[in-house]
């Protein structure tokens, strides 16, 4: 499934300053029973958002109306654990287009890139600055410019650049995905496969 182009995103952000957020927290396994990709946003951070009786946990950041926006700002080692792409789907379906952290788990990062959510890795210092700015003003905005590979705290103009490989960058700028690429090289793959010993 190709996705929307990602060029410049300017938005307020939701802070989640917890480290090692694993994909079981992002979407618990009991919500992985669907056979279609829809509705996962409702269960994003399910057990942090809701009590067992489905009442709202008011202290959780997603339940605080002052925090909103298309950017989720997570703590170090975001997305560890299970490879479930459902975690990235839940982040996307809830309305986030970008996750910012000082460190990402590999598989989660790859899953995000494959569905059009941009993972932006910043320094620990810059992450702190973002959290502080949001603390001062929850409407504070970040600007993420994929072409220039920069993330800017608009209130102060402080800026940092982030890494993404050229191939993935082109994909995201154009809304292409890997399957578009792979299906074009079918013959090359068939030739390779014919030489595999097993």
């Amino acid at each position, binding site marked *: 499934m190709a996705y929307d182009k990602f060029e410049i995103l300017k938005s307020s952000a939701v802070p989640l300053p917890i480290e090692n957020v694993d994909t079981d927290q992002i979407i618990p396994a009991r919500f*992985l029973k669907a056979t279609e990709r829809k509705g996962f946003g409702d269960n994003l951070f399910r057990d942090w958002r809701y009590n067992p009786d489905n009442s709202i946990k008011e202290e959780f950041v997603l339940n605080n109306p002052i925090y909103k926006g298309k950017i989720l700002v997570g703590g170090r080692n975001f997305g560890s654990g*299970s490879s479930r792409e459902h975690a990235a789907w839940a982040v996307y379906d809830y309305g986030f287009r970008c996750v910012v952290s000082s460190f990402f788990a590999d598989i989660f990062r790859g899953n995000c890139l494959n569905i059009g959510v941009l993972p932006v890795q910043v320094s620990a210092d810059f992450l702190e600055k973002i959290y502080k700015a949001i603390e001062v003003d929850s409407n504070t905005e970040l600007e993420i410019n994929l072409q220039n590979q920069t993330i800017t705290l608009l209130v102060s103009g402080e800026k940092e650049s982030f890494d993404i490989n050229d191939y993935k960058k082109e994909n995201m700028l154009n809304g292409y995905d890997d*399957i578009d690429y792979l299906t074009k090289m079918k013959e090359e793959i068939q030739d390779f496969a014919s030489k595999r010993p097993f």
Partner: protein
Amino acid sequence: MSTTLFDKVWDSHVVRKIKDGPDVFFIDRHLIHEVTSPVAFLGLKSRNNTVIYPERTFATADHNTPTINQHLPVEDPLSANQLKALEENSAEWGISHWGLGDEKNGIVHVVGPEYGITLPGATIVCGDSHTSTHGAFGAIAFGIGTSEVEMVLTSQCIMQPKPKKMRINITGGLGKGVTPKDVALFIISKLTTSGATGYFVEYAGDVFKQMSMEGRMTVCNLSIEMGARGGIIAPDGKTFEYVNGRLFAPKGEAWDTAMTYWKTLKTDEDAVFDKELTFDGSEIEPMITYGTNPGMGTGISQNIPNAEDVEGGVATYKKSLNYMGFSEGEAMIGKHVDYVFIGSCTNGRIEDFRAFASIVKGRKKADNITAWLVPGSHIVEAKIKEEGLLDIFHKAGFVLREPGCSACLAMNDDKVPAGKVAVSTSNRNFEGRQGPGSKTLLASPLVAAATAVTGVVTDPRTLL
């Protein structure tokens, strides 16, 4: 030029290198299960694509299956629907499918090796992070997302940047009561839950040379729990002996050709790793976790560390202990336990049940313990019966369930209730992993057995 085992296998599977981008990486064997494949098949259809090599994909139902009364229809309609989707998608595209009731059904990372799907020098992926298990055979194996499952179905390739290389050596031997699970939990506790992110890890040294194939699978399985994409161990005589004669393994002349290649699969003497670590096996004791990620583990005789002595943020550490209901400085031994789970792709093999039996033999299950013994496959189940372990379990008050992932991720009914503490031989102690509000202490089958007969966290060395 000297190269590593990992380089040799990786480089031989690169179909195309993209400048400043990922490699187009060929996949020899693709394993699928009911949870992470349905959306991939939908994507395939929506683009009018086809499955390029159905004979390279194998399907088994495991994550969502009941572990009792498997002969009856699955009660939960959502689970039943996923199982049906796997069966129908497999049938539609001509993929081997081992559903509930099939004798080959079982946990994907247990049955893959058992049927010779897992081979040295192969590349193996599955929409499951514990695919790293298969690295025990000298394969490159790792977990992928559903978009990548679709890529493999339609092109037999994925787009992967080559990870960095790490080697972890463990020298010497292991002490009494110390199992492969303890070795893995020890390494993860040293590296933390993210210490190997971005790396592929080769395990080397005497400890791994002496380890059984089952043990190597346990260690490689847990590679992802320190963030590594996968783990790999050079194949040797034990590996070849394990693979030889299995259903999908090469036969006759093909076997001889494969063996010639497989014998070259080792790291050259002066090959260089991006990072190399060495530990002394004699320093490892039976391990147990006390927090909410697998890096939060300690020797069982130790106390829970203080926040200032561990890497990472204090707030996150305290949040984790608060969830567990534990305090800094407390002893692990003697902690009250309600559930014991032995099973999963980490410790659901015959060797694990033998270890469990070695302690519960002649003893009785503690009254406060609910125990779930779940074999990883029907082959494991059959061996448990053949070897007389089932009698030992029954006499000690334990019941054997049917194969599946079970309480490892609690997608089925095997859920640990809120507030209850489980000693579990599985792989993750995340908040709510074994059921909403459940608390998990990861440990070896020996620690699980010792705990099951005493009712509290117990050092197995006191019962051996």
